[in-house]
């Protein structure tokens, strides 16, 4: 096997990985060892999906039913595969991971549909670098539009294979056989045979290109249904084992010494007292200092006994002056969406502004916020004969494998990363630092080590949604047509930066800058920030020309009917324009599109006259992501996005000074709680004629501007910073 360490790009890029992912070929050619493979899956039928480019080189890929796993090379560029065993159980292998977004269920629905087998017969093996095909990671709303169809193709081909096997057995034409509920049936002779029976004694490996026909969406019988979360019972009984719940024989507990501020470096370390504690292993390797001990209490005591002196890093900006810092520290490499050096320009801003009857300049600030997944980072690491086994909560098991291989100078095939379904991530768990730390401690201790980050470590040493500044300059004609649109995003990112509105003259640019705190992906990435700025600005423009905000948007959405449709759907459900808000209340709306999803939110807020406290009373979100795979899971995602979006909209912000996060606790960093949740209504626009897009991210984007626009209506105050009202609105 060749060196599996990824090029630098894979481990270094944390910010908005999909920008790079979408135009990078897979960096791995993952080869499943044949002996391992046969041992793992046993007899039965396996079907592999081979990516198109690789198929030409894989002439041997189709084994034709003889020889099976023993006689053929296993295809290299497998993107998905499944196995049917002799009792009819179906196991599906995908590198995607379950983080609460419910794909363990929705992907199994897709397979059951195409394989025409009961949903209950499907087991998903996910995010195990030894068993599942390479996958760049679970982010960017890619699972449903990409992995969904791939698994459908595999399942569809498996179904064809079963039909052919039955045809051979009965000596009839396969075309007349039908597959229903895990059986192949011959309608003429009324015979039927279960999939498990057909798999008996087989060792069949079939490789297919992804061109097999799929079940048309209007014939779906399992997809499109609100099937309940797989393994739900394990979660309500507390028996599901998250990484943080794991225990291996002889396992030690780890703790890591953290620097007092960002960028501080070790001047000296004295670990004599810690080393003297029985059972304690101390590791000091470069800037890394950590301990492992038989229990957490002893580990904590050992860590506290270490004396370290630190050299602070040069001064960094703080959460008050960060916005000036960003604009003063622009880096090369900006441009339109995703960077690339040049802004997206159409027409001429000069002409557009000259044609305008009203012009507006405004600046919007976006604070750093934390993902704060309820399960902080955790990893269990175990070394055996020079090979490393790691269990960890991550959205990128293969990325973590690369990080581990790089950190320990071993090849990727010596590292196995497994991802137990985790206590979520929201884009915040793309990296493997906790796994690397646990593995370093386990290496030194010669025993398995579990490392669970504390809440404070998770708040301080993970990474944040990027801070940002957005400048908009615009012009509009007296009859409500946009004439000019100039949009500059500093540091927060390029997702959702393009306007869905028709404007003849535009200049849209993303400007990377230097930044003080570690930053990276987040649910929806910069789309929330860009929509907040754009939709707040649109609201101001509508008011400046005395036009009703929805009418103004529709007038400029003439080339974007799907955005217009969700806007109308949300407005209708909300009763937009039907009534006036009560005193102290306001209504607002916002809309947009990103990652193949179309979203609009109407919000009602109340603002307390005395305290200025903002309560979102009601939120209606309409969402269109093409054909709906699981309407219950989708509603759950839209509802959850609404609640989570409220935090960043109103009160979440990381505060920092002198390189220290000063609010790294739930008692100091406010997240949405029960009483913050509004009355939420979700309108799902089911477009069976359009392939399914992802839904984990886009439903969060319109909430903040809708709330901001509602606050404006309630109070006349235009709030241009996220969070908008950490201490209420000053009226």
């Amino acid at each position, binding site marked *: 096997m060749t060196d599996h360490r990824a090029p630098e790009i894979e481990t270094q890029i944390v910010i908005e990985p999909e920008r790079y992912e979408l135009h990078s070929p897979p960096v791995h050619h993952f080869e499943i060892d044949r002996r391992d493979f046969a041992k793992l899956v046993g007899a039965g039928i396996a079907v592999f999906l081979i990516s198109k480019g690789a198929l030409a080189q894989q002439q041997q890929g189709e084994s034709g039913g003889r020889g099976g796993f023993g006689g053929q090379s296993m295809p290299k560029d497998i993107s998905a595969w499944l196995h049917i065993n002799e009792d009819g159980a179906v196991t599906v292998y995908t590198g995607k991971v379950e983080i*609460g977004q419910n794909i363990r269920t929705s992907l199994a629905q897709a397979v059951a549909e195409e394989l025409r087998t009961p949903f209950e017969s499907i087991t998903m093996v996910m995010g195990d670098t030894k068993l599942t095909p390479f996958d760049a990671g679970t982010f960017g709303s890619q699972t449903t539009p990409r992995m969904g169809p791939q698994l459908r193709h595999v399942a569809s081909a498996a179904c064809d294979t079963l039909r052919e096997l039955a045809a051979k057995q009965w000596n009839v034409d396969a075309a007349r056989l039908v597959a229903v509920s895990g059986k192949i049936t011959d309608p003429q002779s009324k015979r039927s045979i279960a999939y498990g029976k057909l798999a008996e004694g087989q060792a069949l490996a079939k490789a297919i290109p992804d061109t097999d026909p799929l079940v048309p969406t209007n014939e779906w019988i399992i997809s499109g249904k609100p099937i309940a979360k797989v393994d739900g019972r394990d979660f309500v009984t507390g028996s599901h084992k998250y990484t943080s719940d794991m225990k291996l024989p002889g396992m030690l507990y780890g703790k890591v010494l953290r620097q007092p501020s960002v960028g501080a470096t070790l001047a000296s370390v004295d670990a004599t007292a810690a080393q003297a504690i029985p059972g304690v292993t101390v590791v000091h390797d470069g800037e890394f200092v950590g301990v492992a001990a038989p229990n*957490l*209490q002893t580990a904590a005591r050992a860590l506290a006994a270490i004396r370290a002196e630190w050299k602070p890093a040069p001064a960094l900006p703080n959460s008050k002056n960060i916005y000036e810092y960003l604009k003063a520290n622009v880096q090369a490499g900006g441009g339109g969406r995703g960077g690339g050096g040049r802004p997206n320009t159409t027409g001429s801003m000069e002409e557009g502004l000259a044609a305008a009857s009203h012009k507006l300049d405004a600046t919007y600030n976006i604070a750093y916020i934390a993902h704060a997944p*309820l*399960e902080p980072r955790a990893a269990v690491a175990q070394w055996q004969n020079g090979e490393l086994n790691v269990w960890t909560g991550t959205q990128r098991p293969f990325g973590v494998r690369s990080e581990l291989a790089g950190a320990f100078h071993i090849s990727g095939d010596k590292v196995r990363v497994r991802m137990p379904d985790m206590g979520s991530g929201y884009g915040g768990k793309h990296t493997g630092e906790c796994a690397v730390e646990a593995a370093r401690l386990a290496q030194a201790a010669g025993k398995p080590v579990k490392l669970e980050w504390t809440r404070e470590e998770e708040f301080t040493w993970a990474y944040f949604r990027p801070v940002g500044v957005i400048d908009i300059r615009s012009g509009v004609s007296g009859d409500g047509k946009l004439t000019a649109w100039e949009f500059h995003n500093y540091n927060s990112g390029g997702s959702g930066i393009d306007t869905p509105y028709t404007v003849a003259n535009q200049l849209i640019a993303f400007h990377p800058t230097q930044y003080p705190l570690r930053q990276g992906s987040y649910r929806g990435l910069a789309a929330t920030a860009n929509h907040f700025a754009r939709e707040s600005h649109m609201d101001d423009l509508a008011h400046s020309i005395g036009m009703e905000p929805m009418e103004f948007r529709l007038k400029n959405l003439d080339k974007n009917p799907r955005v217009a449709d969700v806007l109308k759907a949300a407005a209708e459900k909300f009763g937009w324009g039907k009534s006036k808000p009560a005193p102290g209340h306001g209504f607002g709306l916002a809309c947009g599109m990103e990652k193949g999803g179309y979203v609009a939110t109407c919000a009602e807020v109340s603002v307390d006259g005395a305290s200025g406290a903002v309560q979102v009373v009601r939120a209606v979100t309409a969402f269109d992501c093409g054909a709906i795979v699981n309407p219950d899971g989708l509603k*759950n995602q839209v509802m959850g*996005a609404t609640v989570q979006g409220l935090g960043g909209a109103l009160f979440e912000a990381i505060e920092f000074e002198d390189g220290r996060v000063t609010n790294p606790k739930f008692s100091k960093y406010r997240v949405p709680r029960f009483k913050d949740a509004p*009355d939420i209504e979700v309108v799902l626009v089911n477009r069976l004629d359009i392939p399914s897009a992802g839904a984990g991210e886009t439903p969060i984007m319109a909430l903040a501007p809708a709330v901001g626009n509602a606050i404006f209506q309630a109070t006349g105050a235009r709030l241009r910073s996220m969070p908008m009202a950490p201490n209420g609105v000053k009226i």
Partner: protein
Amino acid sequence: MSLQLSTSSQRITELQINGKPYKIDAAPETSLLSVLRDQLDLTGSKYGCGEGQCGACTVLIDGNPRHSCTVTVGTVGQRPITTIEGLEHDGKLHPLQQAFLDEGAMQCAYCTSGMIMTGVSLLKTNADPTEAQIAEFMQGNICRCGTYPRIVAAVRRAAGAMKSSAKGASR
């Protein structure tokens, strides 16, 4: 290996959990959560913050919801502790566990144990809580996935189920 913390006379050696005595060995200042998870492998109770702010570690002590991350084992004595593992009886889920499944009231489900324990405690003192009362009582439990409306619906559903089964039993 863990005997070096303090003298054996001070150590806590037994807890009453889910109707059974459990042998433990812990210094009195050890958090109940750590003992449940690390010594007894009762990992349904979760660590989320360590400061009693998120509710993921909620257990019942004497029937009252308590943050086991801030309760030390030295203060518990022989009072009965109920954890999420103790709700299911003879393979039958507690009505609130069932209601969480029926309402799909979870995403990543890391908060679910604590939510259910808090909800069970509420239903003991208020058999028919309003939505506002549920929100008030459960304000100390965080769901970062944002499933609050479904959790409220699950508590309401469980209240209904418990009322009708109580009616059935009294007939």
